[in-house]
């Protein structure tokens, strides 16, 4: 690859715009700049990068936001989710202890990421393993309702069932 050195004459002011903001000199516009001939793998890498960055976020335009949170989509401050509910651990004698899911994460955002249909089974599995270790006779029940982008609130967890025994850990498929 040949390299060109030397600078342009900076004394003359710009008379036209180029592909980039201004051409303050007699330098040719970027489109007219000498181009190097990259190797095939460089061309392939650039094409792959461009295609990936263009196509990857497309899926989020049609995705169900309650199924999984939009990621790698430049979805910046564009919607708000609201979730309510919680879990109850029930002892064999009928007494219960409530679990506030928003306090189980080091930051509250963890709950809002987890409360999606694709991720809740893993979370329930983790809660169940914790219960199994401490008090295996307890049952876990819960209710999580979420809405996204001001849509209707949807129930994500089946009511009244033992989540540790239920199919898909009690998470309701769409």
């Amino acid at each position: 690859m040949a390299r060109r050195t030397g600078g342009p004459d900076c004394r003359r002011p710009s008379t036209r715009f180029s592909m980039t903001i201004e051409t303050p000199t007699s330098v040719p516009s970027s489109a007219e700049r000498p181009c190097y001939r990259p190797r095939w793998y460089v061309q392939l890498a650039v094409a792959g990068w461009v295609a990936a960055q263009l196509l990857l976020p497309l899926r989020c335009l049609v995705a169900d936001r309650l199924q999984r949170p939009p990621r790698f989509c430049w979805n910046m401050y564009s919607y708000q989710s609201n979730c309510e509910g919680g879990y109850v651990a029930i002892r064999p004698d009928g007494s219960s202890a409530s679990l506030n899911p928003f306090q189980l994460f080091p930051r509250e955002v963890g709950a809002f990421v987890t409360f999606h249909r694709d991720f809740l089974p893993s979370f329930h599995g983790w809660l169940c393993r914790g219960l199994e270790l401490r008090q295996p006779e307890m049952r876990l029940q819960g209710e999580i309702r979420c809405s996204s982008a001001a849509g209707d609130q949807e129930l994500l967890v089946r009511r009244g069932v033992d989540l540790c025994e239920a199919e898909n850990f009690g998470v309701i498929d769409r």
Partner: protein
Amino acid sequence: MWFAEGNPLTLAVFRAAFALCLAAEVPSTRHMSVFAIEGGFHLPYLRLVPLLEPKLYAQVHLSQYFLILLLGLGVATRAAAGSLLFLQGWVFYADRMNFRNHPYFFLLVLAILLVSPCDDTLSLRAWLRGRRGLQAMLRPPHRPLTAQRLIQFQVVVVYVYAASMKIHPQFLGGGIVALEANRWLLGAAATDDARVALSSTFDPTVWMALSWGTIVLEGFLAVGLCWARARPLAFALGILFHLGLGLVMGVWTFSLGYLATYLLFLDPETIPCAIERASRRRRAVEAA
């Protein structure tokens, strides 16, 4: 366009500005990416990415300052950019709950800088190789502008999708803008009643207008930055927009990092020529 050559000084200036933004981002990432620490519930992308012990987590962030310094100074740049990419990628990909858009954007930029000639000038490496003095800095050998083009492309993609993702009733109705504005005006600790009271003092059409305006502006920035005639206006509006985001939402490192990318939309000769003109003027004043 992708494989043109030019003066790499602008990319080098961007490298230095970007390093400052990375340094400013470290404390925030350390505070927010705690899901990478062992213990509790995790949502890994891949089981292959191990979680970190608290002590290692702290060291991973602390060591970034040294690597960022190397990147900023332009010495061992590729090793520094590669190591930063590895460390930041590790924390980022350790858990899905760590996802935030601007660390992701910074990772993409780091990956591009890793294979770029960003340390060919305005760097300790160039100085150590004997390219010293103003002229050597301003007029280094021309290099491929491909990395610069890829970052420009990335910036445009972000604007396009950021605008597209906002086209739904909640955003268009003004709900999100009202929420963010209220957070800013009242503080995060304000009660819901206080927020509702404040929201109701403004006509809802104000929030709607701001929401629609945001989408139109982001769309315009995507086009305007690519269109030479519109670029000065896009620069002015983009600067105001990102300073506004920094102020209202507190996302200063993202805003400033994004504004730093605007440098790459300048013609590669703009900065060298501006410095030369300033230098010539100074010499003329001194001679007089």
